């Protein structure tokens, strides 16, 4: 998990350990009657074992705590806690030690250290400890960057960094419903009523027509203790994406509305309260399409309008490049400066292009470069257009 960057021998060693909750030690008791061959041997051994429950040695779940033995998984919304220890492995006193722990995600860099002041001296075999916490609000790659700077006895200033990488996972909405009554029930409706911000696609029908068959097929009812999963795909609505700039943080997705019927149409209904969701991160720049025609004529220039939104927390200075593909040819000046874009702000980008091939063509080839960080973002397959030939073949 850790990538050691420094090639030089350092006097200090940095160690990081993820601190999930400890686990309770479990035992493996074996029952044996007095008249069996082992007699009470097993029972005596359990009694003298320090990790068994005294007076109830057959209880497997003990009370001894064991530290986590592996990194485990991290899910969106969980808190990442870690122990960071800097140990003086040498035999000399080290001075002015500064330890910094930052978390780098695709959209931001956060300082997690609990103290930002340096420690004046660290004797041999001593260590500087810190426990950091971070609530994971973005999916994707996270990198914990730990940097240590210190001064040796001879006055030499040294510095090293270590990187620790981990990933978080994404989630659709899956609702699991179980019939906890003692009679079978028919699920008439399980729908997600979205909030104003989202539009919902129900993924519980085999076909999307009105008369489509449900994914549960012929099993149209739930027996007692049966469980079913319902899946929904959530998309934020266009107008709300615009107004809020970028959807960040906690949003309200909607309510689950459940209607069921039992014996002779006995009806039951439940509505959940508003369900909430943590939005995943989108990256620094987001490019969306504002207008594009469905059908265009072959080799005739047409207009599209893009919108660029700055999703990061710093001002960007952007340069636009347009690259031609086999079928798409851009019109205009490539490599022009678009000007500064402040955080959460957006700008409209009208563009002209033409296509040289018929059929369904994909609009690709836009490149945005952030001159500050010298980072380029590529945008391909932004839209599809249907290209038709405007000339009718002469008849006669």
């Amino acid at each position, binding site marked *: 998990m850790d990538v050691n960057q420094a090639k030089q021998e350092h006097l200090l*060693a940095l*160690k990081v*350990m993820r*601190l999930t*909750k*400890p686990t*309770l*030690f479990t035992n*493996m008791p*074996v*029952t*044996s*009657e*007095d*008249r*069996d*061959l*082992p*007699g009470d*041997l*097993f029972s*005596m*051994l359990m009694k003298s*074992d*320090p*990790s068994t*429950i*005294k*007076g*109830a040695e*057959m*209880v*497997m*779940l*003990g*009370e*001894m*705590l*064991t*530290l986590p*033995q592996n990194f485990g998984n991290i899910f969106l919304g969980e808190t990442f806690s870690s*122990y960071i*220890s800097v*140990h003086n*492995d040498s035999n000399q006193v080290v001075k002015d030690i500064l330890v910094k722990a930052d978390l780098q995600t695709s959209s931001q860099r956060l300082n997690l250290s609990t103290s930002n002041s340096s420690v004046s001296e660290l004797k041999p075999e*001593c*260590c500087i*400890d*810190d*426990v950091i916490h971070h609530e994971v609000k973005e999916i994707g790659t996270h990198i914990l960057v730990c940097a240590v700077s210190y001064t040796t006895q001879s006055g030499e200033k040294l510095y090293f960094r270590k990187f620790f990488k981990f990933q978080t996972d994404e989630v659709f909405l899956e609702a699991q419903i179980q019939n906890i009554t003692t009679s079978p029930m028919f699920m008439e409706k399980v729908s997600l009523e979205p909030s104003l911000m989202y539009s919902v696609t129900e993924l519980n029908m085999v076909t999307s027509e009105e008369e489509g068959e449900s994914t549960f097929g012929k099993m149209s009812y739930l027996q007692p203790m049966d469980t079913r999963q319902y899946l929904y795909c959530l998309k934020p609505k266009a107008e709300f994406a615009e107004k809020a700039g970028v959807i960040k943080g906690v949003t309200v997705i909607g309510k689950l509305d459940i209607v069921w019927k039992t014996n002779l149409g006995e009806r039951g209904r439940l509505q959940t309260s508003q369900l909430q969701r943590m939005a995943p991160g989108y990256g620094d720049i987001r490019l969306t399409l504002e207008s594009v025609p469905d059908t265009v004529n072959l080799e005739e220039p047409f207009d599209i309008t893009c919108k660029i939104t700055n999703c990061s927390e710093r001002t960007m200075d952007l340069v636009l490049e347009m690259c031609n593909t086999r079928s798409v040819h851009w019109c205009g000046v490539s490599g022009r400066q678009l000007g500064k874009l402040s955080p959460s702000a957006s700008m409209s980008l009208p563009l002209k292009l033409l296509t040289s091939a018929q059929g369904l063509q994909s609009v690709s080839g836009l490149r945005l470069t952030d001159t500050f960080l010298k980072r380029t973002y590529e945008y391909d397959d932004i839209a599809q257009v249907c290209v038709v030939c405007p000339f009718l073949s002469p008849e006669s």
Partner: protein
Amino acid sequence: FTDSPVLTGASNPIQSPLVCQPSPSLSKFFADNGSTNPASDFFDSFTTSSFISVSNPNAESPTVAAPPERQLSSSGTTMPNQTHQDVTTPIFFGAPPMEGPTGASQPGLAEATPPFSKLQAVFSGSDDPFATALSMSEVDRRYDAWLPSEETRKVLISVATQQFNPMHVDKECITMPGLKFDNLQGDAVKDLMLRFLGDQAAAKRQVLTASSVEQSFLGLKQLISTKNWRAAVDLTGRLLTAHGQGYGKSGQPTSHTTDSLQLWFVRLALLTKLSLFQNAELEFEPFGNLDQPDLYYEYYPVIYPGRRGSMVPFSMRVLHAEMTQYLGRPQESLDRLHSMRSVCQKILDNLEEGLAEDGSMMNLTQENRQEVSICELWSCVCTLVSSIAQDFVLAVATYQSLVQYEPEQTVQLLSAIGRIFLQIGDIKTAEKHFLDVEKICQTKADGQPLHTAVMMNRAFLYLSQNNYAEAHTCFTNILKCDPKNPVANNNAAVCLLYLGRLKESLRQLESLVQQDPALYLHESVLFNLTTMYELESSRSTQKKQALLEAVACREGDSFNTQCLKLV
């Protein structure tokens, strides 16, 4: 088919050398010195010694052995009962009832049950009324009582009515076990020593092996009690090989005795304790669901005349049920336990109606009615074990019902329920159970163990609420009254780590291990210690090797060396 099944049989081809002692002289036990139970003493010393009988020409003739004060009727081999009509308490047989609600403890008897197979070898022949009486012991009947399935019952009836032809027996329904692997991989501690401490240090390691003990039940018990379980598994292998069920013998017709099944039970139990579940499952497989006809005494009317019931120890049934849970199939465990429970319940119902365990008519004396509770206890064990499956709802319900059977364990059981809820993440319900524990502890006399329980539960609650400081305080409070409490000591150190106090935590655990290795050289503590060594510095190997040295001079071959993190 009449290949002598008993370990003690004279005609047994014994491969490994067995230690033999001459039969005790009978006259020694029938002297006229007014001792209270001379006959029972005879049986106890006979069977609790490491005696493995081979035919001894110096032994007294069996017919001398009839005890003077008893007239036992020769009731033949088919009826299971009447001999004790004029006897109120069975005095011959050593095993007192299981601890708990059963009554009728038997005075002056040793703890081990006489394995009747051994006695049978000496008193051969089924005409001997004494032997017949032995084989119809009340206690045996109660412990061996089991209800065979319909198919098994049919086979057993055909055996009893002598219509049974072993040639026609369906191979599917007989038990043909055999060792599935030859030897366990020796001593993991010694292997580590060879690798990290050198040949000289490794040579100093002294543990009991299968060869360094008596090749008998006694030797086996020695290996078990010194925690040399791998060697014990090897020894069971040797003894089972002598019995004809060794490596490669699986699938070959054989026969079973009480002893051979006890050996299998011990072997499979040790494999379980060593977490070698797949090995255990492989070797359990030929036993089916422990109901095959050749696992019943009735299948061997010559060897066990008149004896009825299952040879399979109840503990082996429990082990069989637990096994699938360790293999990741908890539902199967529950199924097996439920079917065991229903058999126990049926037996109980029969007894309560005044019938014998298997539903046949019999005369129950007053004392026998007390033994009904043995079955209750068996039911109780079943339910206790079902709680270890992953079904939390059932586990909690089971623990709650257990409180009725084992009221003295109420505090521990309620606390365990609370911990289960903490594991799931349901803090509120855990809290509710911990409060119940506190109420009970308040009503009882103020004692240290109760105070410990309350503090421990509070500490776990604080942990679940991320309050490591308060959790640490609770654990140290326990140590004020009970400074040697290993759980409180370990857990306090763990809290220190979460509070960012690595050095302190390390010092605490290290000093515990140094001062009291008997208590603290435990897997869970060592996992914590080595994890912290790795967090502390890059030179942790040296410190881990020191732990290896400490372990080497104390722990048996069943020690889980993974906790040393040397490989």
